[in-house]
């Protein structure tokens, strides 16, 4: 670069926009809450470092992973994955209209927006156990109840993230379609979804992965699943067995993630 004498123009505007009194108060409040929270957390680096040998011991007990029931585990994992697949599929399909209703700018009306948002939040807030109870009394024990629970879970997650992905996309193409006289459906399918697709794929496959991992629910409704196997291993202190199951899940999850990544890479 040349050592050009830096000439200066007219005075630059202020470094920061002066916040309004309200937002200033909000920021201060947030900072105070944070500080107060940090206190309760009883953070201590020395405790963390001193405890590391204990962690190593525990890790040692997980090694080497038990290989005795490998086949069994693989089979259970596949079963779990299949149920997760169905639950997620339904969840994703149902999330699409819900997300449209919950996306600012796409939602047909203000009340619909708030209703859809509340519904999605509700799906997420009610714990899995409660959903599991609901669905067991409704459809009885078995995979169906598990699938329904996973569906609701997925809707609570995908509904929200689909909506946010749709809110975030560039509005240019949407404007173009709207000015061409297209209706809401056309704008969504023609401009919003193609743009939001990579993000939506990521969310969907995350939901699938999540459903597989959190499959303890399936156990609750009597549909078996890898989750209950893992829990049993931990409860019975068979750490090496647990390690094997975790590794198996890891491989599956990493696989799903690679699929997600490959699909997205094609699109981005």
């Amino acid at each position: 670069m040349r050592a050009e004498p830096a000439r200066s123009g007219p005075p630059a505007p202020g470094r920061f926009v002066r916040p309004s009194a309200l937002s200033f108060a909000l920021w201060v409040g947030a900072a105070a809450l944070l500080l107060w929270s940090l206190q309760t957390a009883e953070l201590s680096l020395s405790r963390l470092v001193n405890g590391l040998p204990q962690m190593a011991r525990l890790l040692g007990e997980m090694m080497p992973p038990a290989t005795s029931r490998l086949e069994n585990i693989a089979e259970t994992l596949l079963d779990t994955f299949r149920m997760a697949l169905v639950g997620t599929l339904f969840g994703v399909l149902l999330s699409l209209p819900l997300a449209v209703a919950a996306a600012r700018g796409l939602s047909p009306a203000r009340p619909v927006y708030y209703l859809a948002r509340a519904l999605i939040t509700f799906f997420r807030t009610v714990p899995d156990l409660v959903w599991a109870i609901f669905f067991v009394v409704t459809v009885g024990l078995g995979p169906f109840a598990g699938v329904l629970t996973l569906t609701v879970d997925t809707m609570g997650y995908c509904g929200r993230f689909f909506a946010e992905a749709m809110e975030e996309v560039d509005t240019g193409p949407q404007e173009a379609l709207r000015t061409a006289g297209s209706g809401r459906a056309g704008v969504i399918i023609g401009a919003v979804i193609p743009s939001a697709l990579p993000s939506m794929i990521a969310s969907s496959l995350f939901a699938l992965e999540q459903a597989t991992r959190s499959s303890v629910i399936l156990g609750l409704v009597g549909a078996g699943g890898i989750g209950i196997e893992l829990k049993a291993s931990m409860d019975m202190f068979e750490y090496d067995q647990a390690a094997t199951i975790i590794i198996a899940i890891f491989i599956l999850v990493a696989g799903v993630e690679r699929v997600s990544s490959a699909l997205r890479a094609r699109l981005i």
Partner: protein
Amino acid sequence: MAHLAHQPVGGAVDAPPTVIPLASPTPVLAVDALCKRFGPDLEVLSAVTLSVSRGESVAVIGANGSGKSTLLRCCVRLIEPSAGRVRILDTDVTAARRRVLRRVRQRVGFVFQRHNLVPRLSVLSNVIHGAMGRTGALAWHQGAASPAMRGEAMHCLERVGLAELARRRADQLSGGQSQRVAIARALMQRPEVVLADEPVASLDPSAGAEVMDLFARLMRDEAVTVVFTTHNLEHARQHAGRVVALRGGRVSFDLETARVPFDALGDLYAR
């Protein structure tokens, strides 16, 4: 005639006959005292009044930031005007409910300054999007469109000279190619009015001339009304029947092309 640039002249709906002989009694596009403010002290359009008749071709010129794009966008309510009225094709756009607005927009082809193609879809799909107003959401993708629509879209692409790129993803186009796809999409609407925001800014001279000729043919053969913004005064001179000049959000002049002082527009563009 440089004074013209300073004092708004004619074109206002309340005193049109003296200055511009309107071709037909009911204008295709009538903008009345349109104002647009972004925030409390940024008035981008101030009482813009304008009237365009069927089959007319109007060039809107003005410095960067003078409000040309904002004016066009307000006309189809992509931007909600702060005050004033816009009528297009006998519909009060500013007061229109959603369904009515949709029907008007369908008849107005809009070419965006930034093209606004859907980046991940093919060129052909983007062009077919222009038909969405009349055929519904099925036109979202070339694979779902009817053969007739696909044929028509290819015809539109051919008119802008891009038929061979039909399959290309829209985000892999050059600047000029993407602009021409945007024009083809507007043609696909079978528009009665075309509002084009710097439609040839990225085009090479010959492609630019072709597009301007295309607009001229549309006007002549199909009585399409064309309002376009441009920084190319040569285009304004050759292709517009009338020139509207904006300066700081106000109509600086609104004259038949023959009477525009093209050599003395310094004031219009002065900062």
